[in-house]
């Protein structure tokens, strides 16, 4: 051995990572080991420059930007409420980095923040750390398999993803879903909204400093997840709502379970309101923080509880009803200040309205099939497969090749826990989508962060960010 220092115990030759070492310097016998394998051995790699890990290339926030970029980072495009600029010398400004590994960013969101002392002057959200190319993956999966894929996008409201995808496919197929399947879909997606809001109130209460919220929120959510597990077999990523209906009928005794959940959550929400909404510390931390005005919401496509807290009574369930939502009585709660406090108020009230819908579903659910009888999308019953060769072939074809969907394009929206979840589905007439674009509500909400955060204190970032409830799986897809 020419370089004993590179040898590790056990007679294993370590590859030479020294910069400048050309293949000619190495012994011929070891040559292809160095070129073929990129072997990592502890202590042998060259020291890495830490600086190169945090730069974001073209997405980085710079000290000097064009006026257009400045106005978007200051959030002044729609409404110029910027207070900074005057009085603050440029040498007092510093750009700091929050995320992608920050515990309060709810995943892998990264913010570049320009600070003037403790006051935020500019914000640039940097996303993409959770991008897994799910829209491309969707093009390689059949329509039958598609709901397995989309359910993993917004992982806190998987049933809404499935519902949106299934509705889009059914729209192109022109397949009618039986009333019982529609009611099951309504029941499951409203339960999912409650579970998601409970988790949200747990984590955002925790972020603001109400530590006990973390325990209470997750405890109430558990009751919903137990019901999901009983019904779908899984606690998340259910793949329960599928094109043509749902995967299975509700389990025996589900009415009792749902009424039990309503009781638990009603008591829980009342507790949360006592814990938080009247608490002076909580009010101090949330009132007037992270304000979005009505105009800003409209221009930036902010939907869901955020828009409703800013006085926009836009709810896809009311405005563009789907899956029989028009049969149920519920209200769309709104508030007017558009701050973090109002988002808490709106979301708590939304849970109550969801429970109203659940009660109505339990009372009015019709009997019948839980999936369509249309044999184009639904495989033949198990009993038929034993006696009929054609049924067996049919079953096999549906699960291998998939069913063909007529060529066309459609946009389908549902009200997910976070806002308008839309899917633009293009079919070329084959068994797989030609293109599936997902309009995740969190994507728009992350974009609106500069308007919420500028001119507030750095400590309020966490409160405002939590109130936006971004799910990075939904943002990056």
């Amino acid at each position: 051995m020419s370089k004993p220092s590179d040898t590790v115990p056990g007679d294993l030759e370590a590859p030479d990572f020294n910069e400048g070492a050309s293949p000619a310097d190495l012994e011929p016998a070891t040559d292809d080991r160095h070129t073929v394998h990129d072997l990592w051995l502890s202590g042998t790699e060259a020291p890495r420059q830490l600086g190169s890990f945090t730069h974001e290339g073209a997405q980085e926030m710079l000290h000097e930007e064009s006026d257009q970029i400045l106005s978007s980072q200051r959030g002044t495009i729609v409404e110029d409420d910027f207070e900074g600029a005057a009085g603050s010398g440029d040498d007092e400004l510093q750009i700091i980095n929050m995320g992608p590994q920050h515990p309060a960013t709810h995943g892998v969101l990264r913010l570049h923040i320009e600070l003037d002392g403790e006051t935020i002057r500019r914000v640039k959200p940097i996303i993409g750390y959770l991008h897994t190319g799910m829209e491309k993956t969707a093009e390689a999966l059949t329509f039958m398999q598609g709901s397995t894929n989309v359910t993993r996008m917004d992982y806190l409201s998987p049933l809404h993803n499935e519902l949106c995808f299934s509705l889009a496919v059914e729209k192109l197929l022109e397949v009618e879903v039986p009333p019982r399947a529609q009611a099951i879909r309504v029941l499951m997606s409203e339960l999912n909204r409650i579970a998601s809001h409970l988790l949200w109130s747990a984590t955002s209460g925790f972020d603001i400093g109400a530590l006990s919220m973390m325990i209470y929120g997750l405890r109430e959510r558990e009751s919903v997840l137990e019901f999901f597990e009983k019904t779908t077999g899984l606690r998340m990523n259910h793949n329960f709502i599928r094109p043509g209906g749902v995967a299975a009928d509700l389990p025996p005794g589900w009415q009792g379970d749902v009424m039990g959940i309503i009781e638990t959550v009603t008591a829980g929400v009342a507790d949360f309101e006592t814990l938080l909404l009247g608490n002076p510390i909580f009010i101090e931390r949330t009132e007037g923080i992270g304000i979005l005005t009505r105009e800003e919401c409209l221009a930036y496509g902010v939907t869901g509880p955020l828009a409703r807290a800013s006085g926009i009574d836009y709810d896809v369930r009311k405005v563009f009803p789907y899956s029989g939502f028009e049969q149920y009585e519920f209200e769309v709660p709104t508030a007017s200040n558009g701050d973090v406090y109002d988002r808490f108020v709106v979301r708590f009230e939304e849970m109550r309205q969801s429970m109203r819908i659940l009660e109505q579903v339990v009372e009015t659910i019709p009997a019948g099939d839980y999936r369509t009888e249309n044999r184009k999308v639904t495989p033949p019953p198990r009993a038929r497969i034993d006696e009929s060769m054609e049924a067996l072939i049919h079953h096999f074809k549906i699960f291998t090749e998939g069913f063909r969907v007529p060529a066309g394009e459609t946009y389908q929206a549902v009200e997910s826990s976070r806002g308008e979840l839309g899917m633009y589905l293009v079919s070329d007439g084959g068994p797989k989508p030609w293109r599936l674009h997902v309009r995740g509500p969190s994507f728009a909400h992350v974009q609106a962060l500069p308007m919420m955060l500028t001119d507030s204190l750095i400590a309020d970032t966490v409160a405002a960010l939590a109130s936006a409830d971004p799910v990075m799986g939904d943002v990056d897809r």
Partner: protein
Amino acid sequence: MTAAPANLAATVEAFSHVEFDRVLGDSVARVPREDVVGFLESVRAAGYEMFIDLCAVDYLVRDPRFDVVINVVALADSSRLRVIVGVPGPDSTMPTITSVYPGADFYEREAFDLLGVSFEGHPDLTRILLPDEWEGHPLRKEIAIGSVPVQFKEANKAQ
């Protein structure tokens, strides 16, 4: 022009060459890319003030190759409008709509990142989901799944 929504009468008059259609219950307008900014301004003035979505679709063998699909909502009339802009493959550019709907900013960056449609006049047209060093636009149809190795920008520098 019976297919156009009733609240767009003024827009229909001003843009007589724009085709309106009803597709599976949705109002759809096909707009030439030169007119898209003016058309959207007029649409916004007619009440479609809520920006919802912008995405691009690659049809590969069709002319124009790309469709840029814009979704807007009029709250007062509870109506949705889908504006489709054809963008040819060799010259895949269209004017930015961020001047009309500021919220299109991230969506245009996404369409640029994943499909390579450039938006002229966009303030900061950079990649948004993929790393800067990524070559190509993965949602284009000529890119097969799995043909691109995972790119970590530090992988080659480590040695």
